[in-house]
Structures are given as C-alpha cells and as structure tokens.
C-alpha cells in the first residue's frame, strides 16, 4: 500500500484547503458565534437556522447555488470580475469560499455553545472590574471557552477534509488545483483502481477516527479533571 505522486498532490491540496478554511472560519465564525450566543435580537432564530442550513442541504444544492453566484453572471462573480480577480469556480479560492459555507456550522455551533455555557456572569464580572468588551473577550471569554474553540477548529478542519459534493460542483477535478482526496478516491474507483482507492480511503478512516478520539477524550478529561488554571 502506498501513495502515488497524484495521491500526494491531492493530500497536500486537501490539507492546504482545510487549513486555510479553518483559519478563516475561526476568524469570521467567532464574531458570528459570539453574536448568536449573546444577542436577544429576534433575528437570532433565523440567523441560527441559516448557519445550520449546510448541515441539512445536499452538498449539490449548496454547490449549485455557489456555482451560479460565483459564476460570471452571478453577483459575487461580477464583483470578483470587476475587482480584476477573475471568477472563482474551478480555482483553489473558489473551493475555499465553498468550504467556508459548507463547514460554517461545524465551527460556529461549538463556539456558540461554549460561549453560551460560560453564562452571563463572567461578562458582568469583567465589566465591574473595568474590562471593556474587547478586553473581556480576550482575557475571559477566550480562555473559558477554549475547549469550544478547539473542538470547532478540529471539526471544521476534519469536515473540510471530508468534503466531496460541493467540491465537485464548484471546483471540478483539476489536479493540484481542485482535486482533493475525496475526488481522487472517486477517480481511482472510476478507473477500477481499487488498490489505490483502498490506501486513500483507509487513510481517511484512520484520520477521522483519530480526530474524533482526540475530541472525545479531550472532553472526557475536562469533565473529570480539575484544578487547571493560569494559562
């Protein structure tokens, strides 16, 4: 069992895509999660539903609308064209945009839950100790919600690695640009090259298992262990 040159290219591309997506999602998803966790606005319900939509929708539906929106006639496509960036479908950054949407709930929801579970009190305590909202976020919310952020990062990364349908719709199958592991496996199977498909598939199974083991044992340890403080 081994990986071909093409397999390694696909693995490298997948890891790059997942890393960029996870990083951007933590940056963009955190304010959204914070707002959802703290707001009393009547928009909380609809916005929360919108964030959760990729959990339910078939990836092809998401990919279809993205293809239209990002294409030369779509609103985002027109914007990127006018900025001289060309159109995003069938490029690496097109995949990033698609993955951001696809993995959004996997990052926003754990962070939102973690912030909600802190409760209102620490925010109030920080305020009465002269910490403004930003200060409070970095010195109180971030440390207290750290397990949630860790879970969000791991889930966002792993879920992006496992992406297939959206990629096929938006990115097609261009080696080194949009051919990620799942697409590579699909190719191997199409070509009846089951040995190659086995290696990559098994690697994915092991990877996913390790990721989930890490998350579950981490949460278990937090529930049972105590006396950890002073980051």
């Amino acid at each position, binding site marked *: 069992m081994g990986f071909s040159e093409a397999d390694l290219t696909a693995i490298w591309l997948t890891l790059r895509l997942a890393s960029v997506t996870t990083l951007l999602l933590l940056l963009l998803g955190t304010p959204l999660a914070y707002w959802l966790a703290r707001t009393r606005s009547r928009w909380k319900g609809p916005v929360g539903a919108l964030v959760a939509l990729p959990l339910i929708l078939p990836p092809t539906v998401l990919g279809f609308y993205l293809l239209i929106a990002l294409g030369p006639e779509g609103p985002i496509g027109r914007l990127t064209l006018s900025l001289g960036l060309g159109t995003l479908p069938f490029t690496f950054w097109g995949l990033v945009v698609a993955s951001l949407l696809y993995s959004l709930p996997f990052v926003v929801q754990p962070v939102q839950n973690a912030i909600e579970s802190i409760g209102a009190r620490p925010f109030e305590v920080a305020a009465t100790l002269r910490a403004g909202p930003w200060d409070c976020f970095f010195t109180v919310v971030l440390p207290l919600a750290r397990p949630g952020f860790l879970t969000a990062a791991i889930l966002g990364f792993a879920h992006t690695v496992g992406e297939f349908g959206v990629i096929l719709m938006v990115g097609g199958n261009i080696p080194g640009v949009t051919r990620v592991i799942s697409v590579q496996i699909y190719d191997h199977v199409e070509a009846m090259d089951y040995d190659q498909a086995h290696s990559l598939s098994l690697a994915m199974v092991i990877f996913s298992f390790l990721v989930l083991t890490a998350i579950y044992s981490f949460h278990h340890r937090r529930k049972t262990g105590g006396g950890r403080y002073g*980051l």
Partner: protein
Amino acid sequence: MAFKARFYLRQTDFTLDLDLSLPTTGVTALYGPSGAGKTSLLRLLAGLQRPEAGEVTFRDQVWQAGRRFLPPHKRPVGFVFQESSLFDHLSVRRNLAYGMKRAARAPDPAQYDHIIELLGIGPLMDRAPGQLSGGERQRVAIARALLVRPQVLLMDEPMAALDTARKKEILGYLERLKSELNIPLLYVSHNADEVTRLADHLVVLDRGRLRVQGPIRQVLADHDILGSLREAPFTALFGRVVSPSTTHRLTEVAVGDTLFRMPRQPVRKGQDIRLHLHARDVSIALHRPEDSSILNIFDCRIEAIEEPTPDGQQLVHLRREGTTIQALISAYSCAELRLRPGREVYAQIKALSILQ
C-alpha cells in the same frame, strides 16, 4: 453630594419604579422580601442592566441621563455578586490582579497589603478558585472588588450562598471593612440580622417601590415596617453600656430607662451598642416570676397581637416606656393566658445578642 437614582423598569413579576437619594457614606442596606427589586436596583446602579427610563448621578458624576449611559466598566463601582464569581481560569492572585491592572488608580502596596490582611486571604494567593471554600471565595471576591479602589462598593447578598458558620465569618470581615475602610457600601439583603448588624441607613423596598428609607434607628423604630418584613421576627434596640462588668460578672446596658443584663461582654463603659432580640427568645407571664434564672424580666403592656401563623404561633407586640419588643408565642398560650391588647404582662427575655 448624594447618590441620586431614578429608574423605571417593567419586569415580568413587578414594575420597578424608584426615585432615590442614597447616602454616600457608611453602610446602606437595601432591604425587602425577595422579588422586591433589590438586586435589580443594584444592577441598574452598576449599569449591568438598562432601565426603560432612568437617571443616575453619583456625587458630581452623571452615570445615566436621557440617552447617555455610562457602560459598567467605566463606572467607579466595585461589585460583589451573590455566588462565587471568581474567574475559574485564574489563580486567586491573578483574579485580584485582574481588576487592579485595569483600575484608574491602582492601590499602592500598603493599601494592597491592608486589604489582603483585612480579608485574611494572604495564604490563598496561589490557589485555584476551585480549591477554595465558599467563604474563602467570597472573601477573595470582596478583596478583588476593593482593589479596583471603587468610589462605592455594591454587594448583592454576598452571603446568600453560604452556611451559617461561613456567614458569621464573612459578617465579621465586613464589620472590619466598615470600620477600617472609608468607602460607602450599598448592601442588598433580606436577612434582618445582617442588616441590623451592618447598616447605618436602611432602604426598604417592596414590589419595586420604595416603602421607607432613613437612618436605621429611625426606620427600625417604626413598627409597621418591621412587622411586615421580618422573616424571623426580631427587635433591634439601641443602648449604652452602663457597666461592662458588675460584681456578678454581668454586663449592664441601658436602653432608655430599661436596664438589660447579660453575661459579661467585651465592651467599654459608655459605649453605644445594638442589642438584638429574637421574638422567639421572649416569653410572656401574667405574674412576675419570683424564682427564675432569667436575667431580664420586665413589666410591659400588650400593644397588639397579630393573627396566628399557619404553624400556630402569634406575634405579640409589647411596649415598655419608649421601647417596643416582640414576643413569638404559641397561639395556644395566647388563648390560655387570655392575652389581649392593653393587658399588663411580664416579658421574660431568654437571650439577647450584642451586635457591636
């Protein structure tokens, strides 16, 4: 130079509608039954909650007026919450440093040491909040609030979550705080013991409205207020030590013209003290008991008798010259002795405590 506040806030169970002028010295107790709006008032003052309409002026600073709303982190208050509010991810030392670092004027080392010593938390510095007892946690929280050098300290039932022993311990620390630090304290409580021990000024709230406020001596002298609010009925008496220790090793305290005697207390002659009389420690006899071990027996007149409680007890208001005390006796005895207003009886006081 007062602490003026006007709030209007509709809550689900009551509407808060207050217009207050609070003192900016000493200890002010916000007292009342649960659901009276005490905690809401404190949170509104700190800016943790926004009223539908409100104005707050502290000394010469405007905290809230019209559209102006000073956010909580910009108000010069210290706040102690009901339950433990320490940051779990920081050690005691770093919890204390959290507010201190951000305070407009940090305490100097001598003040820091004084506060640590006052609350007795020196040995706890490197512990995690999870390793502290409830009482220790509250002491750290009080120190943390003091170390931002607030211009007023707001405390929301800081002992509500503690057992009786821990309460006593914290109460002792609060008394030291009161006598040694010159900082106005606003203290929410529905515990009459705490209030009479600590407060100089009493603000009584009921269902979101002000019932009465004033110097504690004056408010407590008013019968109706006390009668409707107590959970464990009691009388607070203001007296002066006549003799700290007689030949029989008793302490004598004069309240008006009445002389109270009790086992020797660590007090000085001429000292002003507060005596606390639980109604359950007062019993009634029709004739003066001749051979009783009870030290304090006074002739009084029954002023009023309240309706029996569901558990068969009746509160009897007794008057002796200018002083009023209450006795909690069984409805059975009340009927058996044929007690009624105007009747002359003898009050036997089994126990009294000195508060200061």
